[in-house]
């Protein structure tokens, strides 16, 4: 995996302290928001958790300058993402965020393109296959979490490009793609 080029501010200690002045804080949060999105996009990280340890999601801490973002700051940054539509909270406790470095509509297009590319039009694919099947590995859909997949499929359904069949158990959910 290629190295992600960190922006200049990542090595600048004040960026790890939540700024007291409103305008400065706004700039700070804006910069962090962009960084989180591009970092997740680069490393294909879908879910960011507030409880994550540093080795799982090392972005919020910079050991080189001995600074890390406080829990309050992290929570605020994730709130920013959610508020701007670039993230969705998973669960009511607001500890895990689904990062939408690509919008749900775009994901829907990606799934549909994948289906066409693999000749799966007019055939039914199960959800499990979409989550971890042979054809998915190595494609754009690899690693997609269930929540995101469901949301994207719902969008496709609204557009009329697919139809979701819900079975009795969770395993039976299937999707039929239309051309």
């Amino acid at each position: 995996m290629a190295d992600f080029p960190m922006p200049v501010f990542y090595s600048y200690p004040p960026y790890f302290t939540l700024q007291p002045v409103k305008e400065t804080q706004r700039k700070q949060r804006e910069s962090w928001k962009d960084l989180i999105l591009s970092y997740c996009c680069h490393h294909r990280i879908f879910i960011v958790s507030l409880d994550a340890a540093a080795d799982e999601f090392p972005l919020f801490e910079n050991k080189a300058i001995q600074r890390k973002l406080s829990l309050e700051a992290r929570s605020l940054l994730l709130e920013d993402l959610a508020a701007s539509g670039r993230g969705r909270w998973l669960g009511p406790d607001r500890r895990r965020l689904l990062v939408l470095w690509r919008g749900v509509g775009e994901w829907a297009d990606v799934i549909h393109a994948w289906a066409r590319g693999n000749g799966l039009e007019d055939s039914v694919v199960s959800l499990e296959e979409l989550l971890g099947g042979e054809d998915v590995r190595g494609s754009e859909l690899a690693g997609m979490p269930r929540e995101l997949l469901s949301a994207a499929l719902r969008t496709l359904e609204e557009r009329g490009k697919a139809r979701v069949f819900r079975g009795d158990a969770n395993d039976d959910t299937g999707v039929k793609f239309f051309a």
Partner: protein
Amino acid sequence: MAILWLLFGMDPVPWRKRALESQHGTLPQDVLDPSQCVRLRRFLRSLLLHDISPNLQCRGAGSHDLSLRCNLVVDGLLENQSKQGTTRWMRRRPGIQGLQRTQATRESFKALGDHVNQTKLELMRSQMAVFKESLEQFALKYRSDIRRDPAFRESFHAMCVTIGVDPLASNKGIWNRLLGFGDFYYELGVQCVETCLVLRSSVGALVELNLLLRHIQRRRGSAAEAVSADDVLKSLEKLSVLGGGLGVVTVGGSRYVRSQPMELSRDAADALDFAQRSGGFFSAPDLSASLGWAPARTEFTLQQLLRDGLTWLDLPPDAGAPCLYWVPAVGMEQAAAAYAAAHRLA
């Protein structure tokens, strides 16, 4: 000892030259009280008669008072002259013939004065024409050097400033034809503003000049013509007529480019200067100690700087250490590097 100098608007009449030592007549001190000195009054009167208006300047102790009195004398003489129509210096000739001759003499001297003025003007005009031509030839000859080398360009501009010529004043003038770099400065100005706007979100509204220059050079790439700090200043000068808070501020030893309207108090400027000298960051106790300020004054200035967005707060991991204040305007990368070096981090 005050010396009375008489400076003339034009060359003195030839036959009066004897009375003057040089263009600048200097008279010794004992002549200096014009209210009593007949000789000086007569002299001044004769100058006025020939339409030579003396510009009286006095130097030395007591000179201000003296100059006032001299000027009063001159004014008094002028008034007298207009009242009487003649002065006591000129011998009254009896009869109408005398009056006519007086008039004729006066008119001839006036004509002489005009003639001298005219000659002077012609001379100056021809000198200016010669000078202008040689300057144009110089510009043509060294045109490529001026475009290419920023140091040479700077010297050329300095020369123009001393002469009073502004090659950038108009894009349509002869200078544009000769040098062709009116556009260069406007383009550079646009690049400056764009870079300032980009930096505003990270560094803030105030950017140190060399830092801005580095960003601009990076942006222009290596293929474009070299620019120096002086070029940036020139183009900003031209752009500052647009307002918008764009300008250059000098704080301590360095110059900063301001992209938003901002007032820097004296204390704030001193604090910024201290930040520059200490590598871009400092703690409140350091600031107090270095500038000798009371804690309240330090606190007030720091709050002001934070509010203006010029300073960012940093809480170090060690809870006992004082919090640090960073100034991005002096440069972020160097500051971070300096911090790493100071704390011996990786």
